Each structure stands twice: as structure tokens, then as C-alpha cells.
């Protein structure tokens, strides 16, 4: 499963936004690797920088960017020095694509979904429309949307179908990596399971890797090979899925896992008291320290990621 050279290697990726109150450190030096045909789940609560991470990887930056630095090495090639135009033509949606958050609203309401799915092909490969549509038909079959839906508009489809169309759109240029930003939120459980199965099948058949961004721990466990837990713009734990789901290391991960309701057992689902810190002017020290039940004196200094049997965790407890 793990190749020598990873598909994607992130190194100290930073994305700060400029606001009137100062810089917001949405992504504050994230590093991790992703292998071929591997699915990594990025977990974390709302506002911890998950979506910003996706945008930073795909270089979909808003206008108020303060700092954007680090290294994104895709298939052995650093894509950071590329110009925006080179990035648009050669990387984004060609080698890695994305299913955006609220994918249901990410379809153009005045385009038929068939044309919509064909759009990236037309934009990128300068393909004729009928060829692009033929490719779109293939992708529709892959994600399980009936072909006669091609001529419909987005508002004529159900949420699940729209989600599938969005996934088809990300697949149509046959990228190696797809970033899925909360692909199953706002869907009912049955549809969620369905979409997860589609994603699993596609992963095998089309040999793609996923970065799955979610706060839905239960559903993501279906798909994950690896888990990256983010907190306040930082990676706090990076582990293989097997061991993570059975025994998370970081106190935040532990509490996150404890908050998942279970069918059997007397334990009430726990919640984490307090709020994640605001991302302006962060003080030094462990960012989780204020909410951590295991806090001790060392927590006032910045923790380092420590390697424990192939798992990385950023907590003074393990030093």
C-alpha cells in the first residue's frame, strides 16, 4: 500500500488570511504524506482549518491571503513554484481535483448536469463537446447516476444524485488525487452509505487517492486508510486508521472519539468543554492546552510532532 515515493507530500504548508484584526493562521504549517490509492481522513471540528487546507493544496485562494508558503510535492514534483496559469493548466483538476463543500450547490443551475460534468474536460483538454459528453457518460456510470439524467438541470435532482454528479465532475479528467470536502454532510444516512460505497469502488477501479475532509468520524471510518487530526490549523495526530480508531493518542483525538455516540454501552457521548482558540495572535504553547484535561507545565511550550511506532502525535505527554 505504501509506495516508496508518496503521491502527495506536504511540507510546512501555511495559509494565513489577512483581516482587519491581524493575520488568521488557518493552516499553520501542515505536513503529511499521502500514498497512491490511499485515503486519508482529515478530522477536526468546525473552524480548525480543514477546508482551508484543501484550498491551500489546490491553491484556490481568496483575495485576502497574507501568507501562502510551504511545499506541495505531487508525484515527485514541487508544484508551489508554478505560476497560477501553469497550475491551472497542469495541476488543478488535471492531476488533483476536488468535490467542494456543499457540493449540492456547486452545480451551475443554468447548465444541464451532463454539460456541467463535461465542462472541466472542455476547459482543460480543449475537447470537442460530444467527446467530453461521452467521457461524462462514463463518469455517470462510474458514480451510478442514470444516463438519462444527463439532460436534467441540477435542481431536478435529489441531494444524493447531485452529490454523485459533483463527484463525477471531479473524476472526469481522471486525476490521481481527489479532495472531498465534507462529501456526505447534509445527506441522509442511507445516501451517505451509498456515496461511501461509490467512493470505495471508484478508489479501487480508477486507482485514485482521497483526502477526505469531514467531522463525521463514523462515516469516514468506512473509507480511511489514514487519519490526520487537525486542531487550530495544526496537525495534532497522524496515524493509520486501524490503530487510530481503536486507540487514539492525542487527548483531543481521544475526546473526539469519545464524542461519537455508540449503540451499545452505558457511556454517554462526551463533549469537549470550551471553544477552539481564535486563530489570531496565537500565544505560544499547546493550542489545545486550555481545554485539555491532562494539562501540565510543559504544555506552555510549543509541542513537537513525535514519532511513536509510525504514528505521529503532537503532545508533551509522549515526549
Amino acid at each position, binding site marked *: 500500500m505504501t509506495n516508496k515515493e508518496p503521491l502527495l507530500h506536504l511540507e510546512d504548508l501555511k495559509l494565513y488570511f489577512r483581516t482587519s484584526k491581524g493575520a488568521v493562521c488557518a493552516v499553520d504549517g501542515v505536513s503529511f504524506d499521502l500514498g497512491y490509492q490511499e485515503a486519508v481522513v482529515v478530522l477536526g471540528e468546525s473552524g480548525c482549518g480543514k477546508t482551508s487546507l484543501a484550498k491551500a493544496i*489546490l491553491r*484556490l485562494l481568496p483575495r485576502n491571503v497574507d501568507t501562502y508558503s510551504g511545499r506541495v510535492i505531487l508525484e515527485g514534483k514541487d508544484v508551489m513554484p508554478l505560476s497560477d496559469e501553469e497550475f491551472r493548466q497542469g495541476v*488543478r483538476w488535471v492531476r488533483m481535483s476536488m468535490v467542494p463543500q456543499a457540493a449540492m450547490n*456547486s452545480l*451551475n*443551475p*443554468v447548465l444541464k448536469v451532463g454539460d456541467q460534468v463535461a465542462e472541466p474536460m472542455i*476547459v482543460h483538454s480543449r475537447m470537442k463537446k460530444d467527446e467530453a459528453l461521452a467521457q461524462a457518460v462514463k463518469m455517470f456510470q462510474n458514480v451510478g447516476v442514470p444516463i438519462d439524467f444527463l439532460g436534467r438541470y441540477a435542481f431536478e435532482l435529489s441531494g444524493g444524485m447531485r452529490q454523485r454528479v459533483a463527484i463525477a*465532475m*471531479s473524476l472526469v479528467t481522471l486525476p490521481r488525487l481527489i479532495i472531498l470536502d465534507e462529501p456526505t454532510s447534509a445527506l441522509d444516512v442511507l445516501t451517505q452509505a451509498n456515496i461511501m460505497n461509490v467512493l470505495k469502488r471508484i478508489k479501487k477501479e480508477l486507482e485514485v487517492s482521497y483526502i477526505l475532509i469531514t467531522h463525521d468520524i463514523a462515516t469516514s471510518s468506512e473509507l480511511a486508510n489514514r487519519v490526520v487530526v487537525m486542531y487550530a490549523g495544526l496537525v495534532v495526530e497522524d496515524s493509520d486508521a486501524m490503530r487510530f480508531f481503536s486507540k487514539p493518542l492525542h487527548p483531543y483525538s481521544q475526546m473526539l472519539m469519545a464524542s461519537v455516540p455508540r449503540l451499545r454501552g452505558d457511556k454517554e457521548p462526551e463533549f469537549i468543554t470550551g471553544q477552539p482558540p481564535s486563530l489570531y495572535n496565537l500565544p505560544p504553547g499547546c493550542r489545545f492546552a486550555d481545554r485539555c484535561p491532562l494539562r501540565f507545565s510543559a504544555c506552555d511550550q510549543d509541542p513537537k510532532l513525535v514519532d511513536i511506532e509510525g504514528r505521529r502525535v503532537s503532545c508533551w505527554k509522549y515526549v
Partner: protein
Amino acid sequence: MNAIKRTIRDIFQYPSAAVGATIILLLIILAVIIVIAFPYQKAINLWRAGEEVWYKSPKTAQPKWVNWFRARDLPETLFLSTLDGSATKTIKPVTEDLTQVIMSFPFNYNYDYFPQELSVFFKANFNTKKPLVTLTWVSPNGEMQIANFSIRASESYRVSQDEKLTRKLSGLPPQQALFVDLNSAVLSPVKGPYELRIVGNLFEKGDTLDAEMVMYGQVSGWAGTDHLRRDLLIGLMWGLPVALSFGLIAALGTTISTMIIAAIGVWFSGWVDELIQRITEINLVLPFLSILIMIGTFYSRSLWIILGVAIALGIFGYGIKGYRAIFMQIKESPYIEAARAYGAGSWRIIFRYLLPRIIPVLVPSLVTAIPAYVFLEAGLAVLGLGDPVIPTWGKIINDANNNGALYQGQYYWILEPSVLLMLTGLAFALVGFALDRVFNPRLRGV
């Protein structure tokens, strides 16, 4: 296609819109027929032609149909000619050189009102010596010689301008006096058979003489005539395609360019947006009508120049502010971000993602803008800045105004173009309001 059908069905749920759409459809069909049946050049030539084309019709005569609403009819125009055989002509050689031509113009007069004028047009062909003509008027009251003169190759004679005849008829206008019994006290036309007899003396061999008599009535054609004897029908008919095309081109030109510019501003933002907004604000302060009047007065009154200026000034209009607000909202929607993510270029996003979203708002405003521009053109024409060549409705109103149509009770001259203008405006307004309801869900069911 289905969406269009559905929209049409929706529109026809509003009876007013159905009426408006029917009127528009009729106007368009009519405009097409007019343009095909009366090609532009032919119509313009007719409209620009002077007396030599229009001498057969009366000045400022009311339309024919006013007789339907009158107890006693107004006289219609009578035209008799020796050239087309409607009048008789006998040639009698007297000596070897002298020839006498006797022409007779008989008619029945059955009206209770006097004709507007009586004219005779001569066409003679001679070498050196002018032919001499004698005009004799035969009425139920008797026979009388009215004039005696020599003529040129082309000569016209109007009884109203013959002062000798006026004196002879005890000061009454001849065109009236010729029809009354001068011995009775009643000044109304005597009904019965009349005849104008013209005897011409030709003094050289091979000379010819023909004459045409026109008794101008007080009604003429289906639309009446103007001060230049032109049939207003031509002007009114050609006014329709001119008005529709002016309105449509101006409305399309301004709304579409406004929409595109607003989208460009919103999408590129930064200095592009700033520039567009500042230009718009400056443009909004400029007095639109005054600029058009200035251009009409000092530069050109051509309809197409005025059209161009109206569009140019309309591009950076209020529309930009409204569309900008809508685009700002659309720009932030997730599907635009998604499009950016899969690499769609700026222009692709503007034309394929932003613009189509605003069409529902655009269509009603486009339809209501059409009559606004039709009225603008008419307004300029009424102010005397209409195109000097092309007949338009506003131009006809301007002509009527300049010739004191209302003081002289020639209401038809003003009312006909005004009714057409109002009908056009009404039709587009009715459809525009219904479209607004169909496309703007918030107004639905109101």
C-alpha cells in the same frame, strides 16, 4: 425549448399579457409586411416627393372613415383626365393650322359641403405659339365662362387663386361660388350634374393638348393627408418598422452591454470595478435628453446617429448598479467557486455562469425598455429633432404641430400617430409586467 414553451404558457395565464402579446405580434407581422410590400427606398421617395406626385390629393384632408360617423358626407376627391380616358376629348380641325380641342369633364355632385379646391392641370405640346384655352362651367344653374388664357407646356390653374373670377362671383371664394345658386339666399351646394368644358385652340400643326381636372375633397385615403398633400398612411406605416427597430435595437444594445459590463466589473473587481462604477456615476449625472438635443441641433439629426448616442449613453446607466448587486451575490455562490476550481477561465465564468443567471431579470426590463426608446425617439422628433428623411410617428406629430393642426381642428393628424405610439407602448408594457411576474417569483400570485 420546453422552458420557453412553459414560459409562454405562464405568460398567457395573464389575460393582459395575452392581449399585449397579440398586439405585439400583429405589429411585428404588419411591420414585416410593410417592409416587404413597400421597400424602404420606394416609401422614402414617395414621402419625399413633392407636388408632382401628390397633386391628385387634397391638403390636410381628413381620413375617409370620418364619413361613417357623419350624418352628411364630406366630399371625396374627384379626378378626371383626358390622358386615362376618364374625360372625353374631341379634336376638330378648323383650318390647316388651327385645331380646336374640346374636352369635357362631366360629374355628379351629391355632397352637402363644398370641395376644398378645383384645379386644372394642362399638358401642352407646341412649337412657338402658345395654345389658348377657354374654361366653361356648366352647373344645374346654367352655363358660365370662368377663364380664358394662354398656357405654357405645363400649366396649372386653381380657381381659388383666380381673382378675376372671384370678383365676378361677387366676392365669394370661387370653389364654393361655383356650386351655389347665386340667386338664392342659401349658401349650400346645389346637387346635380356638373361639367367643366375646356375648349383649346392650337395654332400650329401637330400641337397637342391634354388636361386633368382635380376637384379636391375634404376627405382622402384611410389616414388623411398632410400639408404637403402626402397620404399620411405611408408615414404612419413606415413609422411602425422604424419605431420597432429603433426600440428593439436601443433596448437590446443598452441592456445587454450594461449586463456584460456589470458582470465584468464584478468578476474582475479591483480597479476595473472602480472604473466602471465611477464612469457610471458620472454618466448618471449627465443630462441624457439635453445631450441628445445638443447632438440633434449641432451635429446630426440622423435616426441612426441618435440611436447610437442613445445606446452609448444608456450603456453606463442605472442598470449597472442593479445588475452589479445581483452579480455580487451570484459571484459568491459555491458553483462559481467550483467552476474556478476546475479551471474555467474568467470569460468562461462571466459568459457561461454569471450572465445566464440574470436573464430572468433581464427579459422583463428589456421588454419594458423597448417602448421607452420608442417614446424617446418620438419625443425628440416632436421637439423638431427627428430624422429629416425617414418618416416616423414623432415626425408626423411635429409636422402637425408646426402646421397648427390642433388650431384648425385637424385632430386626426395628431391622434393617428399618438394612438399608434400609445398602442405600441401599452402592448410592451402589458407583456413586460406579466414577464416580470413570471420571472420574479416574489410577484407571483399578486
